[in-house]
């Protein structure tokens, strides 16, 4: 991979991000001013105790939630300034999500699940099919294209979910505990795959994880505690 980190896309910069929720009358501060720079094409593991705000931060970067304060920039786009529909459009082009519980649509086959985000791209039917096929090949499940999620194992489901996340060739892969529901072997396969996405395809991968083994696959590990940055370690 010859491209230098300068012209790679997928650089994230987070400045002064705050987020709190009101539960009843009580206000809970979840993120109390986070500043973080993530370079393009890197795998970054986001770790920390339960309730420290990892998922919240990930959701803010993916534009699934809105920060109270602060600024998140991905490449040239200040996503904290976008409206809901603009965010959706931005997501469809630049972000792929992978969830702990896979979140595949149960009524659709693996192939159809992967095709789903491609409906938002200016592609022909044949191109969509082709591209989804290719994504399934990357995760090694081309032979399971016609199966429904219920007919797949957990590890396979998560690989389909990864195929879905990369199908539209986004710059950013955001994964929330992608190995949380998997056994060691499957978890390692998934982590391996995420690493390859960065190394071979140049994607920026940000994953929330409790798995200490995950940091071995990351270029960088960010620790979060009680809503604040607690340390950054480089591999």
């Amino acid at each position, binding site marked *: 991979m010859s491209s230098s980190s300068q012209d790679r896309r997928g650089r994230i910069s987070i400045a002064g991000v705050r987020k709190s929720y009101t539960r009843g009358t009580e206000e809970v501060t979840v993120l109390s001013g986070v500043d973080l720079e993530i370079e393009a094409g890197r795998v970054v593991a986001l770790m920390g105790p339960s309730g420290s705000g990892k*998922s*919240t931060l990930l*959701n803010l970067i*993916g534009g*699934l*939630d809105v920060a109270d304060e602060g600024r998140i920039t991905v490449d040239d786009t200040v996503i904290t300034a976008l409206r*809901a*529909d603009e965010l*959706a*459009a*931005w*997501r*469809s*082009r630049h*972000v792929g*999500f992978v*969830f702990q*519980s896979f*979140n595949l*649509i*149960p*009524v*659709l086959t693996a*192939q*159809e699940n992967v*095709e*789903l*985000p491609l*409906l*938002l791209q200016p592609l022909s039917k044949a191109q*969509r*099919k082709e591209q989804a096929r290719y994504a399934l090949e990357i995760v090694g499940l081309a032979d399971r294209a016609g199966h429904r999620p219920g007919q797949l194992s957990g590890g396979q489901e998560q690989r389909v979910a990864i195929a*879905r996340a990369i199908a*539209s060739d986004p710059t950013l892969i955001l994964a929330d505990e992608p190995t949380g529901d998997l056994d060691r072997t499957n978890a390692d396969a998934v982590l391996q795959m995420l690493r390859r996405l960065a190394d071979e395809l140049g994607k920026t991968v940000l994953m929330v994880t409790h798995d200490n083994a995950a940091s071995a696959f990351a270029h960088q590990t960010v620790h979060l505690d009680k809503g604040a940055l607690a340390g950054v370690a480089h591999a």
Partner: protein
Amino acid sequence: MSLFTLLRRNLLRHKLRNALTALAVAVALFLFCFLYSVITTLKSAVTSSSADRVVVQSAVSLFMDLPKTYTAKLADVEGVESVARWNWFGGVYRDPSNFFAQFAVDPEIFLAQFKECVITPEERAAWLADRRGCLIGRALARKFGWKIGDTIPLIGTIYTRPEGAAWEFTVRGIYSSSKTNLDESTLWFQYEFLDESIVNGGVQGPKGVGVFYVKTKPGTSLAEITQRIDARFEGDEQRTLTQTEAAFQAGFITMLGSVPAFLSGIGGAVLFAILFSVVNTMMITSRERTKELGVLQALGFRRAIGARLLLFESMLLCGLGGLAGLALGASTEGTFREMFGTQIPGYTVEPLTLVIGVAIALAVGAAGGLFPALQARGLRVADALRAEA
């Protein structure tokens, strides 16, 4: 693969639940179709009434007969073309539950006034030639299996023969009706026969005329002639009430009192109940779908897409159920026409009723899907994703 694939698969995912909901809508629309058709059928007698006939009755009571001498007096009123005498007979065929209408009329004038009563020239000639002959409607003939030449025995209730003997009428013709104001469940026989039986046949009963059907000359104003007739008889033995045929028919509907309103009320309650049922199903559906809606948004679909899918699913479900119910309603038209031949003669399901039905089904679907859809719109992605599957 398209979003429609997703919609279709989702509909098929909970086959039982969706089938039950569609069935509920089908049942409701069937009921709607029936109740609404009862009302339109009743009203069609008014709307299809002739514009050149008026009906003269006693001002005191529909059941008070008018003197026979009024026949000639009526014929002299300006604008009157012909006058037919009508008497309600009220005979019982075997059992009171076999109720159907019977009238004694002046046959030639009746047939001349009612072109909508369709019979062959042979039948016409046969009826006019037989004083004891009668004309029966097609529906009536079908119901009791009567054919031309059969004898129909009727026990008189208003006109009783000595020793309670039965009246016997021979079927000389079977008519069909070309307009809805004339039903096909009536028996007509000769007024002269009735009158003669009272005068010298030992029959007891009112000696006058029930109502007069008057045909007006072309170009006569109905409003004026009704007044002219009533004015003519002011001060005579019996005061009269003259109405256009439409008003006379409408009188029978207002006699139903609150029944049409009651039926509409029930129809409304039914649709309301179904609406709740649909809302309920769609709420269950949307609760289940919450996570899916979150995923769609995470993939970059706009927030409105999820809501629209729900709305569309609901409308599709109700539309299909509604179509099934209306199809049943339309296909049972004949059955109900037979079943209620005498209570609601000429029961007809009008095309407009079906159109209204489809609109209602879709509206119920839209309303049922709207609340969950709005809820889905208001949902934040991060929360949707946290939802239980």
